């Protein structure tokens, strides 16, 4: 009974809050002020033609830089929970799975590459590409344990931080070249954005894969899991 009334209070409060917000939304100005015009006026100088990409990587690139740091932090957070063993494949990859993988993985990498490239002028970009790469990584994790254990050390750490490092490098580099932070030299903007996005795609792919593990892969496990390839380690 008591629980019921507590829930009731919550619901009443929530409805009130929702009502307040709904009222706010309904009273928003018709065709209110926005930055749309400004974005389109400056897009010519941004180095890309897709307005969302222009905002994400040029006008508000600083947000995106921090956002990649946040993604990177998620890995650190997961790793701070301690070591976990790499998930082994539930059973040895069969003929069909191997064949499928051989087709699927290159296709996924290709898709990621396309999305990355398309981001400059159409919907797409580093996050979409990175997500596809991440999918590929998880697929690998679930099937090929040798791959997973091989990367656990400084190569993995480098890949994880590459996106942030390259982005920061470009940001500070453009400052050293006489501009402001993240003020790309005008003619280089397109290329620099592509460089940033490439590094970010790689990192995002790896980060998502690593996050799937849910903890820091134990380096000590490496030899063990290589030996026991194909056998499930019961936990």
């Amino acid at each position: 009974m008591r629980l019921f009334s507590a829930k009731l209070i919550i619901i009443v409060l929530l409805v009130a809050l929702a009502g307040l917000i709904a009222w706010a939304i309904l009273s928003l100005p018709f065709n209110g002020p926005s930055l749309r015009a400004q974005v389109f006026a400056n897009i010519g100088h941004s180095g890309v033609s897709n307005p969302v990409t222009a905002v994400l990587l040029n006008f508000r690139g600083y947000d995106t830089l921090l956002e990649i740091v946040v993604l990177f932090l998620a890995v650190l957070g997961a790793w701070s929970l301690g070591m976990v063993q790499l998930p082994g494949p539930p059973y040895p990859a069969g003929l069909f799975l191997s064949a499928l993988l051989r087709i699927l993985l290159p296709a996924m990498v290709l898709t990621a590459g396309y999305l990355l490239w398309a981001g400059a002028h159409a919907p797409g970009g580093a996050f979409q590409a990175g997500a596809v790469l991440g999918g590929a990584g998880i697929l690998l994790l679930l099937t090929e344990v040798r791959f997973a254990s091989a990367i656990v050390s400084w190569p993995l750490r480098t890949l994880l931080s590459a996106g942030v490092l390259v982005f920061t490098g470009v940001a500070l580099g453009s400052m050293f070249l006489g501009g402001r932070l993240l003020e790309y030299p005008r003619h280089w903007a397109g290329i620099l954005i592509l460089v940033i996005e490439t590094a970010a795609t790689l990192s995002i792919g790896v980060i998502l894969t690593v996050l799937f593990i849910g903890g820091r892969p134990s380096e000590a496990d490496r030899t063990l899991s290589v030996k026991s390839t194909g056998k499930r380690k019961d936990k």
Partner: protein
Amino acid sequence: MVALIPWSVWIIFLPLLTGIFAFLFRGRGAQLGIVTAVGLLPPLIGLTWQVLSCGPQHYSVGGWGAPLGIDLYADGLSIIMLVMTALVGIGTTFYATGYYSPTGETKEKNHQQDPALFWSLWLLLWAALNCLFLSADVFNLYVALEFLGLSAVALVALAGGPSAVAAAMRYLLVSLLGSLSYLLGVALLYFAHGTLSLGLLAESVTSSPASFAATTLMTAGLVMKTALFPLHFWLPPAHANAPAPVSAVLSALVVKASFYLLLRLWFQVFTNTVTPSVALLLGILGVAAIFWGSVQALMAQRLKLLVAYSTVAQLGYIFLVFPLAQGKGTGFSAWCGGLYFILSHACAKAAAFLAAGTVLYGFGHDRIDELAGITQRLPVTMFAFGVAGVSLIGLPPSGGFIGKWLLLNAALAGGQWWWAIVIIIGGLLAAAYVFRFFSRAFSYVEQVPICRDVPWSMELTALALGLSAMALGIIATQPLAVMQIGAPLAGPVLTGGLP
């Protein structure tokens, strides 16, 4: 030349880079930490100098300028927060070099704290704080809040163990809830005013349904992150169970970050939408926090929990700024009092948590009842705790006293004497919980518990931070001069008296 250097960029990117390097180069964390602590000084001094000599500083990232781009902004308030972060940050860094030194592994055996991860996360958290204090864009502030929240949660989880993990989980959920609420407010602001820049919003926000809803959502989200009673439930477990240097940073800095944002929004953006009654509500919740936190601290069985509840109580004080600033002609006094309180609480609370961490480190537990006579073993640490306690109670000469005095002045000169009573009683309650621990620690016993060797860097940093809280009680004029730059309220620091 010096005037043109974009110091704020360095203040953000130095800890960001060292944080990532600490992850890349495992085992170099302590060195990178010290590099950051020392390396942040020149940019910080440079920026302070710029602000002092030329007023608030703007920097447009990417050269676009608001509203299209994102601006960095530094005024007196930012400087105070940055300096506070640096003071506590430098202290924590040196403390951690001892705490995470190879010989000094923590006693809890069931999990290993990874020093490399600690350094990386801590330096990134430092970067997040600096980011937040320098941003002038409400959406960028959202990202900074998440940046801060995630690094803080990860640091709590670093302690391992059931209670720390559970505390981290709770902390994360609360933090996300607060951020999402804030984000929705940002969205409403944008759709109503077409800009995300704090400065432009300050000019355009009027009393409208959208800005009212945004005020509600953003205030609620930030109040939650600042752990104002009754939304404080997540704080004590998170702060009490984290590793010692982390507890210090969380209590001294992280909760202040969301409060800082609240101050910015209330006094610069929402000046037309906030009403005295909402301010009064925040003040009343602050009073409840003072009493509830103090009573819980009085009953706490563990030292770190005592200190954590003390944070709940002390956070209550800073919410008194909102109603006190409504008083006639006392706004600036309240503003300075609140900021001074934040500043000195940061130093004192960091010192107290670091000292408590040293006790836990030395004796392997922090159960207050079993800590009789420990002043004989850790005199320096206990002295540090005592000095910090003096500032927390608000006794002179300490920064806490100055903060309280200014708040008292605002209350009495503005004719709101009831807040003055609360401030005074809160001080007595703080004395009760501080001395409750001391009456244990001072007891003379034949068999003093055994204490293992404590690195000197741990004992001395706690003392240094405690003494800086004291020093703030003596050199108040300089911080107050900084607070005046770009302050949203004007007036004499101390009001009252006949002309």
